[in-house]
């Protein structure tokens, strides 16, 4: 074949690594003395987690009246936060399942902590419907189980489907994460210095010896779980979107909702992955493992999904006009000019305008800019759910029943507290578990090429 010029593509793994140096690098994060910043960060996260517990205590004692919800806005922060958190989880599943099936090797150095992020985000998400039911001690009524009262949940309600969608999602995500962890937990067992740590890692490593049989079954199980998790990336958030679109409230009832929610979820999830990856890369000096290529690719995915979200907004607004339905059109008009217009403008700034900077390669390769844009998206996606939930409810068909909603101090305490819970779990995770998949990163080494096919 003739000589052809190769375009420059940044490597996924910086050159100069060997099998041993990768293990050293990742395992040293856990084996070294706890850095001072960790105590500091963990302390703040723990305080916020305490705030969540306080907010829940007040809620359980006094009831949902401490929140801002009332008629006409009966769904407030709890649903907004639920959708926000569950959306964040999606990037982890996309990275670990879909990118695995698509043979995208760059995913290997970010999938572990992205999956951890998924699980912690789903834990935070799952909290909100439970505390929103009013009598959380009866939350098990959500499950269809034969009971003496002859009482069944409404199977035609998307809220019921949510119970199945989210619990399936949590189960598969947890299994997938744990399965991937096993070989690395065995590495930690072998490397840990204290007896207690050896025993604990040993128990969780479930007797992993690294035999060919182990590896073979591990790989088969990974592919099977990836296959199972792939439809979940689409289905979970589609079911969440049905919570809204199955009803006939203008602003909720539109057919674009399922794919648009899914894209929004991946968008929000990648923003959160970047939010976590950029500081981790700096604090642990992981520049060789989380390279410019990762920043570039994550920036691109955020841009692509952000554009799909913008497409969703455009379709929603266009059909609202095109339908000729005055209530649909009023909803759009009210969003742009009503009492929540500043939320709406801020949403455009965060989710559409800010993201366009990612067209520029320099911006994608600069961790600081990328992190700032990701923070805009984190805020923007929360605002998006606020706009969807609140603006559609607060002014309905009859002007006499219009109202105004805002979160109370307990709404905010619960929301900020849930971020505390998330960070609390995440700080524990980076301290005690290898945050990058050691054995998977090794497949990126030149000597592993040609041997690692997942067929």
């Amino acid at each position, binding site marked *: 074949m003739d000589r*052809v010029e190769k*375009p420059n593509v940044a490597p996924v793994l910086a050159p100069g690594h060997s099998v041993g140096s990768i293990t050293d690098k990742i395992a040293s994060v856990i084996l070294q003395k706890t850095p001072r910043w960790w105590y500091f960060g963990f302390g703040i996260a723990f305080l916020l987690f305490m705030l969540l517990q306080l907010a829940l205590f007040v809620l359980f004692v006094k009831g949902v009246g401490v929140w801002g919800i009332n008629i006409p806005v009966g769904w407030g922060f709890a649903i907004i936060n639920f959708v926000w958190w569950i959306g964040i989880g999606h990037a982890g599943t996309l990275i670990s399942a879909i990118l695995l099936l698509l043979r995208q090797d760059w995913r290997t150095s970010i999938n572990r902590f992205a999956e951890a992020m998924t699980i912690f985000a789903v834990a935070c998400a799952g909290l909100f419907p439970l505390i929103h039911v009013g009598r959380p001690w009866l939350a098990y009524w959500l499950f269809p189980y034969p009971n003496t009262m002859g009482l069944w949940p409404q199977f035609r309600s998307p809220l019921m489907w949510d119970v199945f969608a989210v619990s399936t999602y949590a189960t598969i995500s947890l299994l997938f994460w744990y399965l991937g962890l096993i070989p690395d937990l065995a590495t930690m067992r072998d490397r840990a210095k204290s007896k207690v740590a050896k025993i604990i890692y040993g128990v969780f490593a479930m007797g992993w010896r690294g035999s060919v049989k182990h590896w073979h079954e591990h790989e088969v199980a990974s592919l099977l779980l990836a296959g199972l998790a792939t439809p979940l990336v689409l289905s979970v958030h*589609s079911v969440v979107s049905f919570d809204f679109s199955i009803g006939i409230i203008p602003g909720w009832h539109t*057919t674009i909702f399922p*794919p648009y929610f899914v894209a929004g979820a991946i968008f929000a999830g990648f923003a959160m992955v970047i939010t976590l990856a950029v500081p981790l890369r700096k604090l642990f000096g992981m520049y060789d493992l989380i390279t410019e290529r990762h920043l570039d690719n994550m920036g691109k995915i955020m841009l692509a999904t952000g554009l799909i979200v913008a*497409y969703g907004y455009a379709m929603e607004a*266009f*059909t609202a006009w*095109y339908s*000729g339905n005055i209530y649909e059109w009023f909803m759009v008009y009210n969003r742009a000019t009503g009492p929540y217009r500043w939320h709406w403008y801020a949403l455009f700034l965060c989710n559409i305008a800010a993201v366009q900077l990612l067209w520029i390669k320099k911006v994608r390769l600069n961790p600081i800019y990328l992190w700032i844009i990701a923070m805009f998206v984190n805020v923007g996606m929360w605002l998006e759910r606020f706009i969807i939930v609140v603006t559609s409810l607060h002014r309905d068909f009859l002007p006499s029943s219009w109202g105004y909603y805002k979160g109370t101090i307990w709404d905010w305490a619960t929301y900020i507290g849930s971020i505390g819970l998330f960070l609390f779990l995440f700080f524990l995770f980076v301290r005690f578990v290898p945050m990058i998949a050691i054995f998977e990163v090794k497949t990126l080494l030149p000597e592993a090429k040609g041997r690692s096919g997942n067929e």
Partner: protein
Amino acid sequence: MDYLKVPEEVKGIKKYALAAAAGGFLVMGALYFFLPGTVFFASYLVGYLFWLTIALGILGWLTLHHMTGGGWGIMVRRISEAAVYTIPFLAVFIIPVLFGIHHLYHWSEAEAVAHDPILAHKAPYLNVPFFILRTVFYFAVWIFLVFRLLKLSLEQDKTGDAVIYNKLYRVSAPGFLLLFLTATFASFDWLMSLDPHWFSSIYGVWFASGAALSGMSFLALWAIILYSREPLSEYKRLVYFHDYGKLMFAFVMFWAYISFSQFLIIWSGNLPEEIIFYIPRIRGKWLPLSVFLLIGHFVLPFLLLLSARIKKDFGKLSKIAIWLLFMHWIDIFWNVFPSLKIGESYSILFAILANVAVTVMVGGVFFYFFISRLEKMPLLPVKEPFLREALESE
């Protein structure tokens, strides 16, 4: 690389393609006098959009490939380029649809708009001059994109310059975006407005999902045809055929997901202005076709494509690809005919014949230019920087 030429028996298709185009044209011309205008033009729209959506779907895959890279795209790049090359020629064949506006689109009649406040509301968008202007605009965008990509690809063949790789990437990113937007509005104009009261914000995504699936089926089919013959047979790599099968499988599910989402939301909301789309389709004479669509476009291909063995089997995968192309035709038909108000006073046989004739006619044109283009370039992008890596796989 003179030896990477189209096999003779494939070249022979051109003659048949011309004959099919001419024959289809004659039958179509004769049927014009025997069928009501609505039936005639609706048949035309179905057959025409069937081929156009395949070409557009492939344009989507081609731009996506230039953005993401990957061996699957390199191996079918020439097939993709030949398929999108038909778009400028297919553009001419939209003209009969424009002549049929008054037969197809209720909103185009001043009389109807005057008595219908909803249509009057939509008139700033749904009016004849703007409709034609938009159609011209969509084609202008697509043709520009096609010429740009083909020109760069030819240059790459000559010089092998790495800059071209980046240029293709840079054209494809905004190109894909524009393609998606224009295709969305094209689907609103040409299909959704057949029932001018009805609306669905997911419709553009449905259109894209069908185009992507049929485009991938076409690519898989032609990859099988060319890679099982000289001279490409020595470059056959099974892993990519597995990939095409996987992509078809993914889009069989995606199409079903989008179609079902639209159905579930509209059915459960049951609002009069939305449910009008489904009433003729789930009640009465179109119900069997709806069931057939569900089984043929989703259930059957889903079950078959689950198997990795079938995805790697040339004979079986090509049969599934042909079946999916047929179901894509049914899907468009299903979106056109039940939306129209057609009396009973016409011959069903002639209507079926019209549908077949126009599909054959436009298909003839499509294949003539498709094969012509295939002949012009080596069957592999010989100076693509990652061709060597692509061929290293099993």
